[in-house]
């Protein structure tokens, strides 16, 4: 019987808790996460079923800060499984005791989603600026070749999908942050 398993899975940034629950469920069936990596690839190995909690953090930082970051988590009993698009995967056996949350108050949980929001907003801005360049400056060259025209049309189509998607993601994240805010009295 095969004792490793590779799965590809995509999730939206406001659905991280669903992802955590899925990984916990996999472990309950004996499939324990061993690594994550692009393109949205999860590797599992088979073992005895175990009650792990998984937590996803969102963090970008330099090497020095990463050392401090990892140390604090590991000291608190968390095992680092890897990083994918700034999402950092952590787990802890429940029987080890102590907090099963990496964020123990709403304020710090909100900050996590604000980091996602900031990163995505920055990317959206970059995309929009690129689009302005591509479709304004470049357009004057059209008519020279039908191949170039076709490429532009394709790029426009891609943009027509990507930019609205980004906007939806940003709105969903804002709603998630708002929801967390309202939990505080």
């Amino acid at each position, binding site marked *: 019987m095969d004792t490793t398993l590779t799965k590809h899975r995509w999730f939206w940034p406001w659905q991280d808790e669903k992802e955590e629950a899925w990984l916990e469920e996999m472990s309950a069936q004996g499939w324990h996460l061993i690594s994550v990596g692009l393109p949205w690839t999860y590797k599992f190995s088979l073992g005895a079923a175990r009650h792990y909690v998984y*937590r996803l*953090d969102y963090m970008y930082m330099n090497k020095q800060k990463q*050392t*401090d*970051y990892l*140390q*604090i*988590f590991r*000291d*608190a009993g*968390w095992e680092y499984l890897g990083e994918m698009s700034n999402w950092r995967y952590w787990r802890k056996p429940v029987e080890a005791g*102590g*907090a099963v*949350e*990496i*964020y*123990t*108050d709403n*304020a*710090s949980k909100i*900050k*996590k989603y604000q980091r996602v929001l900031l990163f995505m907003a920055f990317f959206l801005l970059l995309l929009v600026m690129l689009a302005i360049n591509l479709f304004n400056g470049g357009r004057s060259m059209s008519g020279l070749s039908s191949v170039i025209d076709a490429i532009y049309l394709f790029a426009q189509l891609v943009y027509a999908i990507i930019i609205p998607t980004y906007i939806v993601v940003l709105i969903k994240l804002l709603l998630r942050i708002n929801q967390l805010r309202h939990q505080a009295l």
Partner: protein
Amino acid sequence: MANLDDVLKYLPLSESTYYILLTLVEPLHGYGVMQKVENISKGTVKIGPGTLYGAFQTLEKEGLIVKAGEEERRKSYALTRKGRLVLKTQIERLEIMTSNGLAIADSLSHG
């Protein structure tokens, strides 16, 4: 020396931040902070590593704590003068809050 406005803008501290600052009256590393907070709060407050890492970053940036040492890749932090002043002011406020609460606490159980 920090002026009053500099101190007041941080108040009231969140429960987590308050306890983190309390433990840093002497230099302590992350793990020590998490353990001590859980201990002295009699288990009512637990600090997760994500919350603590973020708090260290913010408090250091705001000049309330400062790196005090490093051993085996573990940084320890301690309160700055400004941090001490913020904490002291917070404690004074909490004292007023508590005495107000205690003054009416008896009547709450009758209602």
